[in-house]
C-alpha cells in the first residue's frame, strides 16, 4: 500500500451506496409488479408488460403490468366504495394513518432512496437528502391538516375519488405531494406513477397495510400514457390531479371537458433566474447550480433561463464556467457526485436533439467534460449569446441546459422574465430589499424565490400560472384543491320561458321599441361590430329592450379594453373598496326603477324583486368589505426566512352568467372579481340581458376606471366560445348548459385558462352561503408563494 499517490491527488472516494437490500426487495416480488387495488397486489399473467430499467446502466430492474380499462374500473370502484366511509372517518383517525405513513417511510428511508436512484438515475444524495425527507414532511404536515379539518375547514367536504397521474422526475416525492393532501381531506385515490419510475410507488403500496390505510383508500395502477388517459377520463372519477408535460396536461383538460371534474395541472416551465448587479455573485453561482443542475435539470421549476444585468454579465458567466469544472458526474449511487443520469435513453435523445436543433439558430454552447461514460449522462451545459427569440430560450428543455441573456434595467428584466408562455416559478437575486421585494410580485409565476431557488416545503403552496397549469400543492391553499364547499340544498328558481337572443326574432315579434342598449367596452357605450341586435322580452311577452348581438370582434375589443384596464390591480385594496361602495351608493338611488324592471322583465313579484335588489346592494358591500381583508399568509417553512403567500388577481376574467336573478347574478360575479383586482368581460344570460346593460349608466358615474368592467351581450354559445378561446383571457367562469360547459373547458386548453363551470341552476344567488364568500374570492385569485430568506 502506498499512500503517496493518494496524497499527491487528494481526490474524493467513489462511495457507492449499497443496493443489495433494494435488489433483494425487487426479487422478493419476482421483479414483476401488477396493480395495487383494495389493499391487494393483483397480478395478471396475460397482461401487457413494460420493462423498468436503471438509466445509469440500462439494466432491466423489473417489469410492470399495464392496467387496462377493466383494471381501472376495478380500481375506481374500490376507491368509490372506500370513499364513503373514509370521508366519514373522523379527522383524528385519518391523521393517525397519515402519521403512520410518515413514520414508516422514515423507517425505510434508505431503501426507498436507493430504489429511487436505481429507477430514476438521480444522485443518491438527492434521493436521500431531498426527495425522501420532503415526502415524509408532506405526510406529517398533512396528518396535521386531517386533524384540524373539522375546525379549520368546516365549510368544506371531500371531493370524492381522485385520479392522480405523476411524473418520473420526482417519483416518490410527487406521490407524497398527491396522496397526502387528498387522503387527509377524506378523498380516496387511484394513482398512476410514470411507467419508467414505478418502483418506489410499489414499495409504498406495501407500507399501506402496515400503516392502517383502509382498503381502497389508496389504489396504485401501472401503465403508460394510455392508462393515464383512461384513468383521467374515467366517469367514476371526481377530480384529476396531474403533474407532467404541458402537452399531456392539455390532452387531459380536453378529455375531461364537460365531465364536471375538478382539475389541477402542474405542468412545464421555463423559469427565469433574474440576477441584478448588486447580487452576491458567488452565491448566485451556487444558486445556478441548484436551479439548473439539481436533478439533472429534470425539474419543472428549474431555473433554466438566466437573465443577468448587463453590467455583471461577463463576470457571472466567467464564474459559472469556472464552477462547472468542479461539478462531478458519475454513477448515480456514488455519494460524491453532483450529476447523475437522465431518466431514460429517450429523454437523453430528446435533450440532445432539442439542443442540437436549437444551436442551428445561433448561440454559444459551453459544456462540462463528459465525465460519465454512461449512455444517458448529459453534461451540464450553458448557452450564451441567445435572445428572447431563440427557440432554446422559449422551449422547455427539461435537462441540465441553461440559457443566458442580459437585461439593462429592472423594467426590462421583468418584461423579459415574463416573456414566456409558462409561469411556474422564478427567482430574483439582489442584495437590495427594494429591488427584490418590488420585482418578486411582478414576476408572473406561482412561486418566486428571493436569493435562492428550488426550495420546497409542505407548508408552502406550489403550482403555476399561465401554461404551467393551475392549482396549488402544499399549504392551506393546496387543500382547497381536494375540497368542495358544503352547499345547502336549495329550491330551483323559476326562469321565465321566452325565446333566446336571436336577430331573427326581429321579424316574428311586433316592433314595440322600448330602447336599444349598447355594449359597455372600455368605459364607453359601443355598438355591435356587425351592427346586429335583437330584442329581449318581458315576462308578458312584450319587448323589454333591444340589445346587441356580439361577435368575435366585439369580444376582441372587450378583452383588449379589459387588458388596458389591468392597472386596476395596482390600485390599493382600500381604493377598490371605495369604488365599490360608491357604486352601491349610486345604484341604491335607483332602487324603484330596477325593482320595476326586474318585475317586468323576469316576472317575479315586487317583493321578490325588492329582495333581489337589496341583496345586490348588500353583495356589493360584501366585496367592498372583502377587498382589503382577503389576506395572504406567512407560511412556516423550516428555514430562516418567511414564505409569503400572496393572493394575486388572475387578470382578465370572462364571466358567463345564468338567466335567473339577472341583477344579482351580475353583481355576484363582477364584484368579487373586481374587488380582488381583476378586470372582467361580462356576458349576461340571454333571457334578461337588458338588466345588466341597465347598470351601465350607474357604472359610468361610479369612478370605475375604463376597462375594469366590460359588458357584451349575445348568444351564449358564441360568446363563451370566443371568450374561452381568447389568449388574453386568463380565466372563465361559466354558468350554462352542459354542452356550453364542455365547449368552454375544451377551448380553454389553448392558453390553459382557469375555468370554473356550473350548470345554470346550481345555486340560489339570494342565499349568502351560495351566492357570495371566500369561494368566489379564491376563484378570483391565485396564490403566489414568495420565499424570502433573511439574515446578515
Amino acid at each position, binding site marked *: *500500500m*502506498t*499512500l*503517496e499517490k*493518494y*496524497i*499527491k*491527488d*487528494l*481526490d*474524493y*472516494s*467513489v*462511495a457507492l451506496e449499497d443496493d443489495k437490500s433494494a435488489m433483494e426487495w425487487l426479487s422478493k416480488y419476482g421483479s414483476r409488479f401488477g396493480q395495487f387495488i383494495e389493499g391487494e397486489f393483483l397480478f395478471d399473467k396475460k397482461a401487457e408488460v413494460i420493462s423498468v430499467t436503471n438509466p445509469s446502466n440500462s439494466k432491466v430492474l423489473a417489469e410492470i403490468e399495464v392496467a387496462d380499462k377493466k383494471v381501472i374500473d376495478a380500481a375506481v370502484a374500490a376507491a368509490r366504495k372506500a370513499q364513503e366511509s373514509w370521508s366519514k372517518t373522523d379527522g383524528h383517525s385519518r391523521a393517525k394513518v397519515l402519521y403512520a405513513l410518515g413514520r414508516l417511510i422514515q423507517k425505510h428511508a434508505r431503501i426507498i432512496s436507493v430504489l429511487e436512484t436505481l429507477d430514476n438515475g438521480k444522485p443518491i*444524495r438527492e434521493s436521500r*437528502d431531498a426527495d425522501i425527507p420532503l415526502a415524509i414532511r408532506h405526510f406529517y404536515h398533512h396528518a396535521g391538516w386531517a386533524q384540524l379539518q373539522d375546525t379549520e375547514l368546516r365549510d368544506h367536504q371531500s371531493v370524492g375519488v381522485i385520479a392522480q397521474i405523476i411524473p418520473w422526475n420526482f417519483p416518490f416525492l410527487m406521490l407524497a405531494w398527491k396522496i397526502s393532501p387528498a387522503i387527509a381531506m377524506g378523498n380516496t385515490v387511484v394513482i398512476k406513477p410514470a411507467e419508467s419510475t414505478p418502483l418506489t410507488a410499489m414499495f409504498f403500496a406495501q407500507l399501506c397495510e402496515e400503516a392502517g390505510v383502509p382498503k381502497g383508500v389508496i389504489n396504485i395502477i401501472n401503465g403508460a400514457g394510455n392508462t393515464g388517459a383512461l384513468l383521467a377520463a374515467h366517469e367514476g372519477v371526481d377530480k384529476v390531479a396531474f403533474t407532467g408535460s404541458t402537452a399531456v396536461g392539455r390532452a387531459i383538460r380536453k378529455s375531461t371537458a364537460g365531465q364536471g371534474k375538478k382539475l389541477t395541472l402542474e405542468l412545464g416551465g421555463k423559469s427565469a433566474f433574474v440576477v441584478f448587479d*448588486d*447580487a*452576491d455573485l*458567488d*452565491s448566485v453561482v*451556487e*444558486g445556478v447550480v*441548484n436551479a439548473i443542475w439539481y436533478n439533472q435539470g429534470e425539474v419543472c421549476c428549474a431555473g433554466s433561463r438566466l437573465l443577468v444585468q448587463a453590467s455583471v454579465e461577463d463576470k457571472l458567466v466567467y464564474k459559472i464556467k469556472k464552477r462547472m469544472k*468542479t461539478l*462531478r458526474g458519475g454513477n448515480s449511487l*456514488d*455519494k*460524491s*457526485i*453532483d450529476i447523475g443520469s437522465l431518466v431514460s435513453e429517450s429523454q437523453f435523445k430528446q435533450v440532445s436533439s432539442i439542443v442540437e436543433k436549437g444551436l442551428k439558430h445561433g448561440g454559444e454552447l459551453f459544456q462540462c467534460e463528459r465525465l460519465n461514460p454512461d449512455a444517458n449522462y448529459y453534461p451540464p451545459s450553458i448557452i450564451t449569446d441567445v435572445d428572447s427569440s431563440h427557440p432554446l430560450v422559449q422551449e422547455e428543455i427539461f435537462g441540465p441546459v441553461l440559457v443566458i441573456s442580459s437585461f439593462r434595467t429592472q423594467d426590462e428584466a421583468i418584461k423579459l422574465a415574463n416573456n414566456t408562455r409558462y409561469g411556474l416559478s422564478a427567482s430574483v437575486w439582489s*442584495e437590495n430589499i427594494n429591488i427584490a421585494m418590488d420585482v418578486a410580485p411582478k414576476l408572473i409565476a406561482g412561486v418566486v424565490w428571493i*436569493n*435562492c431557488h428550488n426550495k420546497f416545503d409542505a407548508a408552502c403552496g406550489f403550482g403555476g400560472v399561465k401554461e404551467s397549469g393551475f392549482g396549488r400543492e402544499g399549504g392551506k391553499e393546496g387543500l382547497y384543491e381536494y375540497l368542495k364547499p358544503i352547499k345547502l340544498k336549495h329550491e330551483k328558481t323559476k326562469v321565465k320561458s321566452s325565446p333566446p337572443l336571436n336577430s331573427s326574432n326581429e321579424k316574428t315579434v311586433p316592433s314595440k321599441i322600448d330602447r336599444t342598449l349598447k355594449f359597455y367596452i372600455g368605459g364607453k357605450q359601443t355598438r355591435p361590430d356587425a351592427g346586429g341586435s335583437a330584442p329581449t322580452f318581458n315576462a308578458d311577452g312584450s319587448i323589454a329592450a333591444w340589445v346587441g348581438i356580439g361577435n368575435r370582434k366585439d369580444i376582441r375589443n372587450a378583452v383588449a379594453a379589459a387588458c388596458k384596464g389591468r392597472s386596476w390591480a395596482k390600485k390599493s385594496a382600500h381604493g377598490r373598496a371605495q369604488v365599490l361602495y360608491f357604486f352601491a351608493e349610486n345604484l341604491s338611488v335607483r332602487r324603484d326603477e330596477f325593482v320595476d324592471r326586474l318585475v317586468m322583465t323576469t316576472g317575479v313579484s315586487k317583493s321578490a324583486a325588492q329582495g333581489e335588489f337589496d341583496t345586490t346592494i348588500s353583495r356589493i358591500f360584501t366585496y367592498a368589505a372583502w377587498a382589503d381583508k382577503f389576506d395572504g399568509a406567512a407560511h412556516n417553512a423550516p*428555514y*430562516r*426566512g418567511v414564505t409569503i403567500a400572496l393572493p394575486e388577481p388572475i387578470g382578465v376574467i370572462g364571466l358567463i352568467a345564468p338567466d335567473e336573478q339577472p341583477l344579482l347574478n351580475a353583481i355576484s360575479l363582477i364584484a368579487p372579481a373586481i374587488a380582488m383586482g381583476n378586470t372582467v368581460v361580462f356576458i349576461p344570460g340571454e333571457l334578461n340581458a337588458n338588466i345588466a346593460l341597465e347598470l351601465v349608466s350607474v357604472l359610468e358615474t361610479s369612478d370605475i376606471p375604463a376597462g375594469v368592467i366590460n359588458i357584451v351581450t349575445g348568444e351564449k354559445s358564441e360568446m363563451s366560445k370566443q371568450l374561452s378561446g381568447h389568449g388574453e383571457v386568463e380565466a372563465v367562469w361559466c354558468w350554462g348548459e352542459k354542452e356550453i360547459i364542455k365547449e368552454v373547458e375544451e377551448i380553454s386548453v389553448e392558453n390553459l385558462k382557469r375555468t370554473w363551470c356550473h350548470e345554470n341552476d346550481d345555486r340560489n344567488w339570494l342565499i349568502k352561503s351560495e351566492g357570495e364568500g371566500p369561494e368566489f374570492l379564491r376563484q378570483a385569485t391565485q396564490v403566489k408563494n414568495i420565499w424570502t*430568506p*433573511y*439574515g*446578515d
Partner: protein
Amino acid sequence: MTTINTKSEIIRNPGVEFQQERFCNLKINLSAVEDRCAEYAKRRSIKKENQAAWLLKVISLIDLTTLSGDDTIARVRRLCRKALNPINEKTKGLLNLDKVNISTAAVCVYHEMLSAASPILKGTGVHLAAVSTGFPAGLSPLPLRIEEIKYSVEAGADEIDIVISRRHVLEGNWQELYDEVKMFREACGDAHLKTILATGELGNLTNIAKASVVCMMAGADFIKTSTGKEPTNATLPVSLVMIRMIREYYESTGYMVGFKPAGGISDTKTALQFMTLMQEELGRRWLEPDLFRFGASSLLGDIERQLDHFTSGYYSAAYRHPLA
C-alpha cells in the same frame, strides 16, 4: 527523506495600492452562503486510503499551537518535538511511510516562547510562528505593535500572525486598516505575514469579506479567521467568504494568498470539511502548506486516532498517542 508536500514556489503577495472599488460594493448573502456550506460534507466523500492520505496532508498543514497564559519552556519544547514527530513510528510503519518526513507546518506560540522553540525547529523545515501586535485584542500602542513584530522576527520567528484592529472595520476606516497592515508587513521583512481578522467580532459576512480584501491589498501572505479567543471561531460560512475573496484577488492580481482557519477545529470530520471546501473552491494547489494552514492544538490527536483505526480497524485510546 522525502516529504509529502509538493514543492513549487509561489510569488509572495506584495500587495497592491489601496483601491476602494475592490471592496466597496461587496455584499454577502448569509443564507445562501450557509446553504452552500451545508453541502460540502454531503456532496463529497473521503474514505479509506483517500481519507488516510487527506489526514496525513492535514497534519502537514497544521500550525501546532499553544497560546496560554501558563505556557512554559518545557511545554513549548514538548509541542515542538511533537510537531517534528506528529505520528508514532508504528503507525508510520504500517502506513509504509518510514522513509517519508512527516511534520506539521509550523509551531505557533507567543513571543516569549520563541527562544524555547527556535533551537528545536531550526533547520527542520517546520516554521516558527509568533502571534503578535498585542494579540489577541490588538489594542496596544501602534509603535509597540510594530516593534513587537521586529522583536519576534529577531527572535527566530519566520511567520508572524498579527491581529487587525477590529475598530477600523467596525468604523469603516478601511484606509487606516490598510495602512496599519502595510506597516506590519514592512516590519515583517522576510517573515510571512498572517492577518487575523477575528471574524467573530466583525459583525457580519460583508465586513469579513471587505476586511479580507483590504488585508490582501496591504500585502498579507495569509488571511486567518480567528485568534481562538473570540466567542465564535473558524466556521465554514466565514471561511467560504474569505476563500472567495482569495480567489477573486488571485484572479484580478495574479497573487496567491493563503488561508488559515483557526480555533475550534478539533476533529477530523471538521478538518476534512475544510479540506473539501479548499479543494472545491480553490483547487489542489491551495492544499499545500504555503497556502493553507490549520491553526489547531487538539486536532492532531484525533487524526492520530483515525490513522490508527485505518491501519488496525479499531479505534485507539488517546493515551496511546504521545501528548502534544
